[in-house]
Structure formats: C-alpha cells, structure tokens
C-alpha cells in the first residue's frame, strides 16, 4: 500500500526548492556571519536575506523585528521568560490560554516557581479563548499574555485581533505562538496587533533547527541565552545559516502558494470531516469553521487513540493522537481536557494534518481504513453496549 502521511503537524519534509536554495550554506558558503572577510559577509547576507523574507511573511514593521532562534520552543522561551523578566518592574503576572503549547506553559510554570502569578484562561468546547475571562484575568501587573494563533491539536483559530484589543486595553503584551497557523492563515502582526510572534521553520517545509521570534519595536525583551551577543544580543550562539536561509525561502514560497494550496487542502479536509463524522459515535474536535484549512481532528467513543494510530499505520497511513497512551507522561492531552472532554473521551482522539503529498483522491482509502480500524477496535472493546 502506498504511504499516506497525515501527520504534518508532527513532521514535514523540506521542500526540495528550499533544500536547493539552502544547500550551499552547508558546504561551500560555510562562513560565520560574525567574521568580517568575504565568507563571513556572505553568511551574514544569507541571514539578512532570510530576515527580510520572514518580516514580509508576517507584515512586520521592518526586518530588525525578527530574531532567529534554534526552534519554536526557544522562541517561546525568549518571548515568555525574556519579556516577563525584562518587564518585572511592571508586575509579576503572566497568563496563557489553557491550550498553549507545552513550551509556553512550562515557561510560565517556571516563572510561577520564582514568585510570578500564572493564570490560565479557559476555552470553550470548540477551543476558542473566552474573551470575558481573559479580560477579567488581566491586571495592570500582567506583563505577557500568551494566546496561540491556532491550535495544533484541534485546529481551532483564535480571534487574535479581538484578543489583542482586550490585552492592550490593560497595557499588557500579547505573545502569539503562530507555529500551527503560519502559512495556513495570512498573518499580519501590525494589523492583528501582535507584540511577539513565534514561528518555526520546520512547519513551513523548511529545515529543522531554526525558529524565529518577531518582537515589536517598542517591546522590551531580555536574553535567556548568554554568550557572544548574536541576534541583537537576544540569541547568542553561531547562527544556523543553512536552516535560517532555508526558513526564509520556505516562508517566501509558502506565502506565494498559500491561497492555492490551502484551498486544495481545505477541500480534502472538508471531505474527510464529512465522511468520517458519518461513522457512528465519531465527532469532530475543535471548531467546525474557525479552523486551519489542513486540519481534521476527531474522537471516537469506546476506543483508544494509540490503538487507532497503530492500526492506521498497518494501512500505511500515519496519523496522530492526543491519547494518554501515546505520551511519555501517560497524561491525556491538556488541550482535549481544556475543551471539556472527559478523560475517557480524550483517550479516543485522532488528528490528521494534511500537506503537500496529500490529495483528495486519497480520501476514499483513508476513510475506508478509518472505518475498518474503528470497527475492529470496537469489536475488541468492552465499552460498546
């Protein structure tokens, strides 16, 4: 059976055009951007070229607002810890939605251990942040509020513009993790009113090993990594030129092809959702319309997600799950619990994230495999009446 890969939120191939573009920076153009001779200048110009591309990708004020890091996790660390610590004089409160990425949550928990107040804003059953709760949780002592652009596990897109207004009314900074949304939703940091924004290279068909953080010119952030002072002193360490150059190129290609590609994947997504939710006791998770165009996520009663994943793999179809059993911690997904699912319902989740290798002609094969998987596992399950 041909492989049908439906787990692009976990891993994506590098676009061959991106690889061709960035390849010279591994072997021939190996300079260190801090060196003043030609090899260094060549490397520096690759980084600056990528910076300009990323700035354009999110409509930033200028390219100086972009700091390259090693990953989205690192960008989230810099955004949360770097902002909270730099602005400690303004207060010691931080806030995140209940469905943020674990790197944001863990940074805030770390701050909490060090005397900060950490508040978690609940979401509704679709995963949309409750604006009233957000408003009531913010105080003048809040420094950074972290609300993601879209969630990787349930596909829900947050009303960032509305959220930004609420956050700014109290004079707080809004950090937005846009890893799942970038390239899927047009991002305009100025229009949306975003102060800090996290991006990841490998979620844009770029190489792993690069992330970026947009920092609005008026926002003050301090470094969380100390060293030689690269990236305006905010991210010390020799730049990963290959990954950074690739990330810039990947963002540029994605921006150019976004509308067409998203329309193509959305059609496939809608077909998957309509077919799979026809299965008895199968439900969509996340928002039906405020949803990433490449994202289809479900839950099935009476069966468990890791079993679903392994069983689908037997059909050579790769999916993901938020089930506890697939995690090292054996805890069910905090996202599924935050949208109000009971533990037993959260165990039966399946997530599909579509990408360049997928097309609508694969839908019947996928749906057939899902139906057979659900049927087989339910035959084994004592929970079926």
């Amino acid at each position, binding site marked *: 059976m041909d492989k049908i890969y439906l*787990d692009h939120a*976990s891993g994506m191939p590098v676009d061959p055009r991106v690889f061709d573009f960035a390849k010279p920076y591994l072997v021939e153009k190996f300079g260190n951007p801090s060196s003043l001779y030609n090899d260094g200048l060549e490397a520096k110009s690759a980084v600056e070229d990528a910076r300009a591309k990323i700035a354009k990708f999110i409509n930033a004020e200028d390219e100086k607002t972009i700091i390259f890091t090693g990953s989205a996790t690192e960008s989230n660390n810099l955004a949360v810890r770097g902002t909270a610590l730099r602005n400690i004089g303004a207060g010691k409160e931080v806030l995140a939605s209940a469905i943020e990425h*674990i790197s944001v949550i863990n940074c805030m928990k770390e701050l909490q251990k060090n005397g900060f107040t950490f508040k978690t804003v609940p979401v509704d059953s679709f995963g949309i942040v409750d604006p009233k709760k957000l408003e009531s949780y913010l105080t003048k002592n809040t420094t950074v509020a972290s609300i993601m652009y879209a969630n990787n*596990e349930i596909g829900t897109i947050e009303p960032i513009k509305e959220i930004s207004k609420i956050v700014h009314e109290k004079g707080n900074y809004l950090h937005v993790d846009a890893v799942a949304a970038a390239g899927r939703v047009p991002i305009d940091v100025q229009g949306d009113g975003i102060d800090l924004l996290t991006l990841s290279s490998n979620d844009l068909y770029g190489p792993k090993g690069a992330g970026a953080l947009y920092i609005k010119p008026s926002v003050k952030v301090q470094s969380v990594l100390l060293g030689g002072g690269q990236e305006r002193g905010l991210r010390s360490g020799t730049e990963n030129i290959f990954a950074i150059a690739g990330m810039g190129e990947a963002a540029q290609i994605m921006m150019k092809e976004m509308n067409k590609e998203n329309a193509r994947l959305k059609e496939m997504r809608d077909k998957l959702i309509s077919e799979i939710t026809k299965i008895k006791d199968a439900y969509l998770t996340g928002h039906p319309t405020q949803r990433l165009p490449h994202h289809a996520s479900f839950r099935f009663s009476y069966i468990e997600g890791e*079993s679903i994943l*392994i069983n689908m793999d037997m059909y050579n179809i790769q999916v993901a799950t938020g*089930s506890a*059993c697939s995690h090292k911690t054996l805890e069910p997904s905090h996202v599924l619990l935050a949208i109000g699912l009971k*533990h037993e319902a959260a165990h039966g989740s399946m997530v599909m994230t579509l990408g360049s290798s997928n097309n609508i002609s694969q839908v019947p094969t996928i749906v057939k495999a899902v139906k057979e998987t659900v049927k087989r596992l339910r035959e084994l399950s004592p929970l079926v009446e």
Partner: protein
Amino acid sequence: MIDTAQVGYSKKVMEHFMNPRNVGVIENPDGYGKVGNPVCGDVMEIFIKVKNDIITDIKFKTFGCGSAIATSSMVTELAKGKHVDDAIKITRANVADELDGLPPQKMHCSNLAADALHEAIKNYKSKKK
C-alpha cells in the same frame, strides 16, 4: 501535546495486536474478571469456562492501547488449558516476557491482563464454594 506512538513495541506485541487470540465474551461464564477504568484509558474483561479446575475456554474484551490489547491476548493464550491454581500464578512479568518485553512506560498501566485473569479465577473459586 501530540505524539506519534511508535513507542517501541516488539514484533510479538504487534502480532498479538493485529491478530488477537480469544476475543469475545462467554455467556454464563464460570468466572469473570474486570479491571481498569475508562478514565485511565484501560479496561479489560476476562471470561473463563472451567471443567475439573482446568480452564477449557477463555475470552477477553479490552479497551486500551496497543500493549493493553496484546497483553490481554497473550494472557488468554498462557491460561488456556491450565489448572486454575497454575493459571493464577501467571504474573504481569510473565506476560511481558512472553511478548518479548514492553516499553518501560507501559509496564504498569497497560499490563493489567494478568490482574483480570486473577479476578476471573477468584470469581470462579468464590462461586464454587
């Protein structure tokens, strides 16, 4: 957080997951055991038919991950045809060993099959009295 679940199962675990033995229920069983709960993500039911203290038939139903299903299947194979006093000695470790091992994080939560078997045998013995 999402994780793809290539948690490192042995070939034998995968084989039992794909082709589980002794799936189903026994009407009017001589012994019945149930362990786990859906909140934790694992529920196992075992039904036994016993003649002269020998387990002549055994069936299971399981809600859970790959290792939960494979261990259930394996424990039914190990117990079938055994004297109940021998079958009750089958441990979680025996089941894991017979499957060529389980990933460390699965040793406790998803390795309840032996417990379900013990419950079924105890149930049989309590009925006999």
